């Protein structure tokens, strides 16, 4: 296994700390790793910008809304990870990534090792650059979610993990 960068190491440690079960996986192990972390009926959004595909996995890509509602696991790409916080940056796009990452009990986020940034400031510089880049290219606006751990609430008298959003989150860090 090639040595991981410091940022990625820090990210993995922090992800675990915020209750995100995290695995590193090489591209040739990817399908097996996905299979081992999904439970119940699984749906997903194809990983457009990554060198791996969900097509060889048990994940049903591009589900109907009814299939999404019946699913337990949702698999989507994360565009960035902020090492300091264990924060996964999830796209809100026209392919349904937001729906698939949100309306399930278990979310699996796929992340490229090189998409780990050290801190929040760097992440926001990246967002800002994306924004101006897409504006210059005449592309549509960008929406994204900074997701740190599973959903949670303290409104029912005690801390409960798993509120409206997913109760469990897994991250797969793709080695390159």
């Amino acid at each position: 296994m090639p040595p991981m960068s410091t940022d990625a190491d820090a990210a993995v440690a922090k992800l675990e700390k915020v209750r995100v079960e995290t695995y590193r996986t090489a591209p040739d192990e990817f399908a097996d790793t996905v299979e081992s972390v999904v439970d119940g009926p699984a749906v997903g959004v194809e990983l457009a910008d990554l060198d791996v595909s969900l097509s060889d996995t048990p994940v049903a890509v591009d589900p109907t809304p009814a299939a999404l509602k019946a699913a337990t696991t949702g698999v989507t790409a994360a565009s960035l990870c902020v090492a300091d916080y264990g924060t996964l940056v999830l796209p809100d796009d026209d392919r349904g990534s937001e729906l698939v990452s949100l309306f399930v009990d278990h979310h699996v986020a796929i992340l490229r090792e090189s998409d780990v940034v050290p801190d929040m400031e760097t992440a926001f510089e990246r967002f800002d650059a994306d924004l101006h880049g897409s504006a210059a290219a005449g592309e549509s606006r960008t929406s994204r979610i900074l997701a740190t751990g599973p959903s949670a609430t303290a409104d029912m008298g005690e801390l409960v993990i798993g509120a409206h959003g997913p109760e469990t989150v897994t991250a797969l860090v793709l080695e390159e």
Partner: protein
Amino acid sequence: MAKREEYERLIRTEGASVRENTQGFNQGRYESVAKLDDYEGLKAEARAIKEDAIERLPELIEGLRESVESNGGTLYLADDAADANEYIREVVADREADRVVKSKSMTTEEIEVNEVLEADGVDVVETDLGEWVIQLADESPSHIVGPAIHKSREEIADLLNERFDPDPPLSTAEELTGFAREHLGELIESAEVGMTGANFVAADSGTMALVTSEGNARKTVAATDTHIAVAGVEKVVPSVEDLSAFVELIGRSGTGQDITSYVSLLTPPVDSPVVDFADDERPLSEHDADRDFHLVLIDNGRMAMRDDEQLRETLYCIRCGACSNSCANFQSVGGHAFGGETYSGGIGTGWEAGVEGLDSAAEFNDFCTGCTRCAPACPVKIDIPWINTVVRDRINRGADPEAFDSLVDGLTPDAEGDDAPDHEGETDGRPPLDKRFFGNFETVAKLGSATAPVSNWLADLGPSRWLMERTIGIDRRRDLPEFRRETFHEWAASRSSNRGDADADAVADAEDRNRTNGRRVVVYPDLYTNHVQVERGKAAVRVLEALGCDVVVPDVRSSGRAPFSQGMVRTATDHAEDVLADLDPYAASGYDVVVVEPSDLAMIDREYEKLVEDGDRDALEAVRERSYEVMEYVCGLLEQAGADPDPLVGADDRTSGSTGGRDTSDAPGVVYHSHCQQRTLGLERHTVDVLERLGYDVTTTDVECCGMAGSFGYKADYYDVSMDVGAQLREQLDAAGNADRVPVASGTSCLEQIDALLSRTPTHPVELLDPESSV
């Protein structure tokens, strides 16, 4: 006395839950911000962004309008609540919506949009679990971040079981959450309109940030085809990049989380496909994102706040709740007492004054005692105590902004005529009688000392106490301060230059060594040290002399803390000018100024800046630069100037066995309660350092305030709150490991409160060190 009964009821019914939650948030804040490399730098950055944004607000709003429109949304700038509600009604009616699902938004509480939509027959559903609970209970939020923190798990279970009759009944927090998730999930998925707030909105892109943890805001937006975001105009910042500092600060400051589970950075209308969750034919990618977006920006008094030099700072508020969580009084009573129409806690005063008006702010403004513990907690460095003082001043003045507040006629029998307001009464442009009494405490103290001990006997008589409670609202259960016939200043002036009887050779030698330090010191005769706690003043003089200082106690006016606390800003300013005029010549000739009472040092150190005119700035700087809390000064003498501590009474001098040895094993330990304002000034550690240097074993308390807070604990309306806050301190002082220690405190109020709370008698730290110590 209706207020008193209401507060007592809230402490009894909601206090325990509020306390547990706010103290948990507060403790979490301390732990979370400690992990930041540069917390102060981050706060300064956040502050600068807000200052700039509010300065350029009209321009930013226009930029935002362009961004939102080019994104395909609509921006509506509403003048007031009615205007906003009318617009929202139309949007909902045009969509022919049966249901609006909402994520948490205090601004929608402010405009009361739920009632308006419900009157149109629309089903309005709060999806934040806390908001949903209070919607079911038909109550109002008790905290701007945790709306239902006043409810225990058991109360929530009872509420849901009664309302929905689930089988089996719900009990655990997991069961309650699971039920809510299912129930609300169905309602969200079939709703047409999703309404959110917005924590921040970036003008250059139209990107808004939503800071949440449950995921309901995400669902509210993703599952509906019409998104209405409601936000105050002050939420606009220049660009997305500006959000970074706030994202790092808001969770830590509010609930003590490094970051909340979700920070949505949406540039609406969002691209998520609009779906019917029953559709089992078409995959997600074949659904269009046919979604309308309306950003409703609300003025509702905010642009006027922007033009108001004093209230403007309120607009920097990011609604994190840190000022509520760090407030000892809020921890006891919560936002149902310490809150107005919509907003609660320390900054609530600014919001209510600006949005609703002074009447709403007046309902709860007196809960702010000016303890300043919220000031360092605020992520945008708002001087929240000052806003409370300003608003109190305006309330005092009522309709007549030119009214004069320092007249002492309120203290004479003349004022008890027909037109004299009682302590709950309306004012005729003057502060109410109780505020004038406490605010002019200098006059009371002078009279008290001049006629002591008769004044003390008279004041303590039953009928006097009854009259005092009735007219100026002093709770008769409180011990009154006992005025001393000989003031601290008089003692110092009449005393020979002979500095006590330093008979031991070693001590004399050490004093001779210390004498070479040649520091000249003014011990400031603050109001309480001068008239009531005279012994601690004498102790301060003797300690400083023993460390080689040349000490004088000039006749200087009281700091103005008393009128400042009552919102009598002009009277306080009058004091400030006199004090600076008196002290500046000393500072100019090289004297340091040592202050015993922390709240008076805080006047010089942090409040005078707000009070004095430009002409007094140089004097203020000169005096402030040379002013020290007494133990801070002793610490400096010992640590930096190398003074010999031998003449001071250390732990080894208090051992029962050996004399003069260094064995302190059976010396009494000390439990130290630092003063709230002293802690805000960062001066707690100096006292601990000095005591430890002198061999004392020291533990400290960590409650934010003792609950007495100057005049607050004396007031009959607030006596129960004061004692409830004090009970927290008592618990710590009497905890295992502390129960046998000598209680030590720096503030007059703290000493009085501890005296009332414990059977042990507390002492000021400088009295422990006093070469002529009697404690």
